């Protein structure tokens, strides 16, 4: 299992990652349409902006959206990391494995920061 986990993304199963990437993509597309739609139909000032993003359903939607962003970005960034940062690829040395782990840790750190920042901004 440890070996499998090393080569797999967030869930340890390729199929689950594949589905996660698609589901979060649809969620984020809908959220984008919602926000763009809000700006399109309203003459936005602080009152309308606060009433919209400050409403409970929208706070929940924004929280779901930041979680979807993190899930979606993790599958994407993980895929990019495993595709390009590996020993032998573009003449990279064996230590490329360590570079990739550092890259993944950096991604996770940024995501954790995004999540906390988003929660403090939304709620």
């Amino acid at each position, binding site marked *: 299992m440890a070996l499998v986990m090393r080569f797999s993304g967030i869930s340890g199963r390729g199929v689950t990652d594949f589905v996660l990437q*698609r589901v979060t993509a649809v969620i984020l597309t809908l959220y984008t349409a919602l926000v763009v739609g809000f*700006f399109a139909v309203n003459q936005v000032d602080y009152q309308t902006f606060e009433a919209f993003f400050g409403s409970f359903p929208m706070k929940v939607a924004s929280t779901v959206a930041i979680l979807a962003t993190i899930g979606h970005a993790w599958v994407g960034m993980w895929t*990019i990391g495993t595709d390009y940062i590996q020993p032998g690829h573009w003449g990279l040395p064996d230590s490329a494995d360590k570079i990739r782990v550092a890259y993944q840790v950096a991604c996770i750190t940024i995501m954790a920061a995004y999540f906390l920042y988003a929660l403090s901004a939304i709620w």
Partner: protein
Amino acid sequence: MKMDRPGSVGLWETILFNLSLVPMVSISHRVSGMILFAGVAFALYILDMALSSSNGFAQAEALLSTPLPKLIMLTLLSLLMFHIFLGIKHLMLDFHIGDTIRASRIGSASVLVLTGLSVGVLYQWLW
């Protein structure tokens, strides 16, 4: 068993294909995704500022009307539109809609056209 796959392709053909529209658009899905991931920080910064108070909202508005932040915002929005349209194309491929070479070319070109149009509309609406 019938092998229904292409044989080996020469280096020159490979290079030419990789520089053509479909793969260029495809690799830019990854590039735009990475830039958007970094751009989340900027979006959160603006959202946090705009939601903090009416002063903060005015501050965010003022900031977004200065050239560089405006350019960053417009670039991120354009990349988001591009990423979404390309994602829709990708989801269609998952269901084997438009997965021939001809259809892929039309699809990739459509993604670029739709991105251009939506960016134009967004620019008119938001500023």
